[in-house]
């Protein structure tokens, strides 16, 4: 049977892959997808802890699952706003490559 540590390790590796995408890729859309990976890694560890911390009734801790529900909702709103910003940026500059967007660079 998989243990809590196995799930947390998989969640940590998923977060690391998302972090790698944010740090190493130069395409705004891929960076945005990597952000989604990191949010999902947090969701996986929350659900694993919910299954581990069983309540007195012998059921999973539903408070954590409600938090996952909220995270999914906020992430959906974030994707909508972020992609609208990317489209507005593309209209103005015709690029989604972060190295071409250096007007605010110090």
């Amino acid at each position: 049977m998989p243990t809590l540590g196995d799930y947390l390790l998989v969640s940590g590796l998923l977060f690391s892959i998302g972090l790698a995408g944010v740090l190493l890729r130069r395409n705004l859309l891929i960076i945005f997808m990597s952000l989604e990976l990191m949010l999902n890694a947090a969701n996986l560890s929350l659900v694993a802890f919910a299954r581990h911390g069983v309540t007195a009734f012998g059921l999973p801790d539903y408070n954590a699952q409600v938090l996952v529900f909220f995270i999914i909702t906020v992430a959906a709103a974030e994707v909508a706003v972020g992609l609208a910003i990317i489209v507005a940026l593309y209209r103005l500059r015709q690029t989604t490559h972060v190295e071409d967007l250096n007007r605010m660079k110090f």
Partner: protein
Amino acid sequence: MLTILFWVFSVLMLASAAAVVLFRNPVNSAMSLVLTFLALAALFVTLDAFFIGVIQVLVYAGAVMVLFLFIIMLLDLKAETRRRLNIAALAGGIAVLGGFVVLITHVVKSLPASADHFPTLARTGYSDAYDIGMTLFSDFNLPFQIIGVLLLVSTIGVVFLSRRSLR
């Protein structure tokens, strides 16, 4: 059986997540991301979180990925051309990443509950939508309403940002 399913879906999820980062064509990345979300939904089901698994498929693999693919095809993005690599940035990124992986492995290994098996549930194989709904509408009623306002605000924001001329 659960062990085999856990490892199959974990490896599938991590491999397709790595493919998201490694593919040069954004459409291929988006398709790998769909596979990542489906494997993650399967992992939620192995944790007896059926409702969250269904929501994951509907919202992420459905709505969010349709939005991503729509934007990729609207902007007509081609595969990235290779550019001169910034060696310092690459080395810095890999160093940060290696440190992070070592750190998170160490933290998980040193957690006292890390080797615990999951306790058995009082009821198995039932729908948990009822219990989540009770928790959501009793203990978390105010946050639920605030999330509704957040969705309204983000809808208005997207409509504003999508106008032809931004003032």
